[in-house]
């Protein structure tokens, strides 16, 4: 979650990979991967399987649009 703070410029590819990871996180492109990581660390013992990708995206979209999201 906090790679940015401990991040050191090793090489150009590292920097580009880092920017790409930031863009993916910012747009929510990697939301499912982050959900899986969270599930494996926190909920692996509770339930048999995590949600599949399509089900997760449905759930995520419903949650995201419940409050004020956009402004004038």
């Amino acid at each position, binding site marked *: *979650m*906090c*790679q*940015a*703070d*401990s991040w050191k410029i090793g090489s150009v590819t590292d920097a580009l990979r880092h920017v790409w990871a*930031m*863009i*993916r*996180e*910012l*747009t*929510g*492109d990697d*939301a*499912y991967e*982050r*959900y899986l990581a*969270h*599930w494996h660390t*926190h909920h692996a013992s509770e339930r048999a399987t995590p949600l599949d*990708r*399509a089900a*997760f*995206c*449905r759930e*995520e*979209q*419903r*949650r*995201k*649009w*419940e*409050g*004020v*999201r*956009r*402004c*004038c």
Partner: protein
Amino acid sequence: MATTVAKRLPRPLSLGMWAAVVVFGTFALAAVAFNRGESISAMWFIVAAICIYALGYRFYSAFLAAKVFALDSTRATPAERFSDGRDFVPTNRWIVFGHHFAAIAGPGPLIGPTLAAQFGYLPGTLWILIGATLGGCVQDFVSLFCSIRRDGRSLGQMARDELGVIGGAAALIGVMAIMIILIAVLGLVVVNAMRHSPWATSTVAATIPIALMIGLFMRHVRPGRVLEGTAIGVVLLLLAVFGGGWVDKHETLRAWFDYDGPSLALMIIVYGFAAAVLPVWLLLAPRDYLSTFMKIGTIVALAVAIIILNPQVKMPALTQFVDGTGPIFAGKVFPFVFITIACGAISGFHSLIASGTTPKLLANERDARFIGYGAMAVESFVAIMAMVAACVLDPGVYFAINSPAGVVGAQAADAVAMINSWHYPVTVEQMQVLAREMGEATLFARTGGAPSLAVGMASIFSNAFGDTLLAVWYHFAIMFEALFILTTVDAGTRVARFMLQDILGNLVPAMGRTSWYPSVLICSGFVVAGWGYFLYIGTIDPLGGINSLWPLFGISNQMLAAIALCVATTVLVKSRRARFVWVTALPLVWLVAVTSTAAWQKLFSADPGLGFLSHADGLAAKLASGALTGAAADQTPRLIFNDRLDAALTAFFLITVWVLVVETSRVCFASMSGKRCPPLAETPHVPSRLVEDWVRD
């Protein structure tokens, strides 16, 4: 912490650098303020703005963070305490900044400065710079701070907790009212950009099927692949801009997309209702991805173009219209420049975002400064760029595009004669050439700010990135504005629907169930009817609608800012920080003075251009004397009713603000004199466990 010290500049160097920023900023601001020549380089605006934001951020926000709010990095944030991987997620501060900025940056800071340029560039520019650093950024920061200290609660809940039931109710009703007015006025901006323009209308229409396709793609073909979907969508949108040009040249097709204002208003109303009741994934979510991407891309491109090209600002520093005789909207520079530019200087709406999703993502309390204060400074910079883009036009052209036909006359020759009489040279031929270059039939009386901003942006872009595609750049700018205005229309209708369902749910529990379809249809219908009414009336109003609706929007937005500042002031007093209360109380007093004066003038001014009631009386007298015939006579009773409705709304805003101010004073005095008042609702300190492993900079 050792790394922190190592990274900092040595003290003398740092002092020297900030001294240079002060000198440079003062010089640039003086150049902007005292220039009375023919034109002035846009670079001065950019330099002055960046220096002022840098100083505000480095010193004032540091003072707020350390002394006033006493931000505490050892205190666990709601994201850490409730971390659930869904709503509450400790997130990297750059990512939170991105989300927060994308949420607060809407069409407001582009339109307000464009309209306020009728006073000249100076009043608006000064208000954007001063209003943001001392008001808007503070409001966003303090709202975020209060919400983090209250488990990420919303503004409405905080108002109820800190001020009591009356404060809570005022906040809720205020938000509903501002939504309705906001959507109506934004809808009107889009309608005015599409009126009798097949190119603009077909391009904007094409954004709907494109959004639907991307919605289906991200739902069924590649679930959750946001970047892939957005990339395809952006390519299709750019093709739609070129496609619109092709439609415009096609004899039969162009007739399918050629509509007058009222017809376009009805289409937007139907569209708004459909968007509100359709599932989010099908239209709203994909449209939002596309518009966020286009918005940030275009804003960055505009900044780069202005810096590369360094255009000349041709608008004078002050125009004669500071006396209140302006054609675009009536009223003197005080208070109306402060009403017209809300977003970009201080926007109450931001307090909803700052007390919405953002506080649930902050990993560290100290990030509130960067996100709350910093994101608003960037938004304010967008407003400065919009001001520059409006003011690079010849003033005569600016007034010809933005003045409603009801003021300057419907015939091109009349409009030109009127504008020339104000000593702003422009000719009919010049406007015809410009319209042809932009691929439009006419650019006269295209009120609302979007067309003149698009002309400004097109001329900046085509100069910076290639001269040949002026019409394409113009319609690109229109598409970009329409895209995220329609996103605000969809999202705003949805939010207002949720609120209405929430309110009605107290009376009929079934109505409160957000997924019960009859309730969805009924509540969406009410909300759409509310803004649809103002939108439709705006299109038949001879003064163009923007004239009366934009001030109403400004007043309601500033009223919401006043509510947020009332809550913040109460919190400061109750938490024994009364000696710093001026931090929120001064912007609050200013906003109350501005909104009250503006509302009073809109209500009771004897000038029919300014006062709603005197305008209604004037129309009624004309109607009674039989001076009006035909369509005008049929429409007049509706316009009279609308004036009186606007007056009632204004009175309502005025009363709400004052009720809240009285409540705030009562609670503050009660708290200071030890009498009974709602207690401070701050959650107790829980030590953070994240800071130990994190090296903060």
